[in-house]
């Protein structure tokens, strides 16, 4: 496969740039780290490094070209043994694919679409012309599944109450009508069984989405999630793969007691072979669920019941987000508030309060828990020198424990205060409202922790 070199985004706001000068010519051999071009933006000139080794096959954009959009292909690298003919063949395939994408949406056909290979771009930037629709997280998740099921006939949804009842939390609304009972399958209340069934279907070539009514019930199924889905690729020496998504609500809801109020992010994030995603916004939920469905690995996709009804702006264009990339939701200089899922909202509220007291908090939404965006975490700590890490799960051996250790190992010299963990209380979730409030992460908890690490009263 040839490697496309894209116009890089050199800042979060950059949309276009200038390829000022090429430092290589077609036919040159480059190694990772070699400087290949100078890129100019309105703010700075930067040097672009090769991230792979290969031969420069084609410089698609000439030196001196201005207004090149971010993510546009600017050059193509050939790997060993590839020649220009292969490059041309690929280019024509790319062109036809692009043409298909641009065509207006065809009516849904009676025959299932054909399976397609996965390819996830970098985090897209939505330009000033992008249009948005306000969607709930629930709708965004449904749209993600519907779009991927239209795209790939091997994708199907299975779980309790997903078909006739349209989902216990109404996430699968309309899917049975559109895709029929062979692709939207109601199961008996049999979590261990259908987690195994779906994993076996993935081994044999389909791409299942498994809905757990809640992740609390997935404890029944954790053997197949870990022993079968996560481990079999390794145990089989790479032969057997499991392109599967395990999704459903995770973490505390409200007033439902201990057996319905647990966050499993830390449990699954510990397992090599799994990827773990836990989005906050509807746009991220949609783009990351689409990425999870396309990912050729088992992905645990943790939703949040209390976010299902929250509305966010979601881009109308077709987009997929990269797994493993955190997002800075609010820039700040005094302290970093790092969290994921529901408590991102709590952290944003805390940042508002802190601003009123003269503390500038940066809010980082991890979005993916495994693989962690280590660089984003280190970068924010180097910038603010103080971190409060927040999760709804238990702190012991939890995600915040991992974050704290990571910051200590990778950014110790930049810390002006010990990292502070804010997590769910170390008890099974109580039922009584007053106790539940004490057991869950509140805005005031984060505000207090942020002041502590800033040594402010």
């Amino acid at each position: 496969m040839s490697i496309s070199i894209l116009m890089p985004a050199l800042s979060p706001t950059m949309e276009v740039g200038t390829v000022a000068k090429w430092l290589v010519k077609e036919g040159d051999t480059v190694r990772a780290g070699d400087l290949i071009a100078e890129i100019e933006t309105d703010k700075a000139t930067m040097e672009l490094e090769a991230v792979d080794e290969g031969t420069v096959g084609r410089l698609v954009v000439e030196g001196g070209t201005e207004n090149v959009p971010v993510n546009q292909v600017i050059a193509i690298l050939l790997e060993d043994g590839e020649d220009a003919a292969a490059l041309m063949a690929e280019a024509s395939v790319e062109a036809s694919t692009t043409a298909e994408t641009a065509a207006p949406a065809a009516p849904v056909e009676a025959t299932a679409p054909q399976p397609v290979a996965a390819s996830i771009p970098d985090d897209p930037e939505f330009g000033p012309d992008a249009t948005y629709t306000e969607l709930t997280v629930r709708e965004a998740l449904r749209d993600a599944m519907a779009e991927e099921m239209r795209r790939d006939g091997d994708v199907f949804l299975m779980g309790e109450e997903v078909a006739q009842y349209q989902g216990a939390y109404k996430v699968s609304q309309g899917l049975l009508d559109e895709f029929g009972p062979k692709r939207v399958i109601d199961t008996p209340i049999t979590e261990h069984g259908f987690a195994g069934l779906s994993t076996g279907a993935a081994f044999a070539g389909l791409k299942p989405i498994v809905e757990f009514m809640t992740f609390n019930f997935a404890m029944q199924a954790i053997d197949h999630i870990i022993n079968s889905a996560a481990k079999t690729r390794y145990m089989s020496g790479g032969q057997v793969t499991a392109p599967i998504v395990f999704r459903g609500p995770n973490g505390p809801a409200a007033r439902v007691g201990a057996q319905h109020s647990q966050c499993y992010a830390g449990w699954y994030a510990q397992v090599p072979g799994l990827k773990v995603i836990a989005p906050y916004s509807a746009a991220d939920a949609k783009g990351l669920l689409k990425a999870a469905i396309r990912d050729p690995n088992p992905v645990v996709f943790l939703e949040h019941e209390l976010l299902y009804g929250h509305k966010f702006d979601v881009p109308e264009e077709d987009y997929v987000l990269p797994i493993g990339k955190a997002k800075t939701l609010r820039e700040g200089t005094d302290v970093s508030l790092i969290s994921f899922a529901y408590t991102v909202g709590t952290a944003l509220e805390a940042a508002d309060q802190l601003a009123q007291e003269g503390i500038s908090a940066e809010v980082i939404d991890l979005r993916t828990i495994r693989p962690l965006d280590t660089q984003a975490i280190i970068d924010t700590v180097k910038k603010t020198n103080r971190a409060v890490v927040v999760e709804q799960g238990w702190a012991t051996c939890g995600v915040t424990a991992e974050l704290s250790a990571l910051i200590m190992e990778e950014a110790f010299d930049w810390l002006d205060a010990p990292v502070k963990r804010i997590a769910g209380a170390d008890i099974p979730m109580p039922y009584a409202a007053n106790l539940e409030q004490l057991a869950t992460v509140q805005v005031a908890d984060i505000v207090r922790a942020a002041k502590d690490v800033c040594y402010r009263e």
Partner: protein
Amino acid sequence: MQLSREELLSAYTRMRTIREFEERLNVEFQKGTVPGFIHLYSGQEGIAVGICEHLDEDRDYIGSTHRGHGHCIAKGVDVKGMMAEIYAKSTGVCGGKGGSMHIADLDKGMLGANAIVGGAPPLALGAALTAKTLKTGGVSVPFIGDGAANQGTVAEAMNMACVLNLPMVFMFENNGYAEFTAASYATAGSIEARAKAYGMPGTTVAGDDFFAVHEAAREAIDRARNGGGPSVIEATAYRFHGHFSGDPQVYRSAEELKSVREDHDVLNNFRDRVTEAALLDQQELDAIDAEVLTLMDEAVAEAMAAPDPMPEDLFTDVYNTYQ
């Protein structure tokens, strides 16, 4: 139904291959050249082969157990690749990363031996759902011990196979012991009768009679392949060895062990049957035995001489990359 000469020779060769593979492993394990846990299938060969002789390599799937070598060989997994895998060598079918309890060969429709008791039936169910969805005509067969019969996963899989009308055969091998505990203690009622409770056909056959297994399997697999849904076969099985190689079997009497080997050897029964009926003769069967022994010598020698996995392979095969 009368088997052809070729079918008889194929079945005998497979069963003998399993027997000698296991007996050789037992010897090598006692010598200390084989690591880990080895669960031997000797005595149960007729069940794996009786089923797999009806299965296609490319479209039919099996799910297996910790006692999986026999299932692998019956489904066509390369014997030398298996031996090398058990010796933890880079030439093993899983590159030395799986071992005895995790041998998988997807190209042969072998979904994997599974060290979790009751792990395979739901996975095999998924392969059956895939076969039905993609209309491959494939059938999926999990092998299930009498111990696994009591796992919730098996009950869940039996129910869902019926609810979704999947092309499945649940092949129960009741060898009388769940690890070290007798089925008479740990398994209530009848396994076969559980099929009827789910509304699917069930039958019990003698596992030391290859022909009985083969005939029951033909009926069940044809039914599944033709859209007739899942069914259950329970075979009474005779485990020659302990739970694992080296198990002193204090829970079994000397008389029982003697009887298992002398009265219930599926290979002896097969030989008697085909030679008495003049379908095959002793000399050609002896020739197969000799060939199989030579194959085992080669497999062990090649496995021992093969290189270990490379240290740089440690972190490969965890994640699949985008295509």
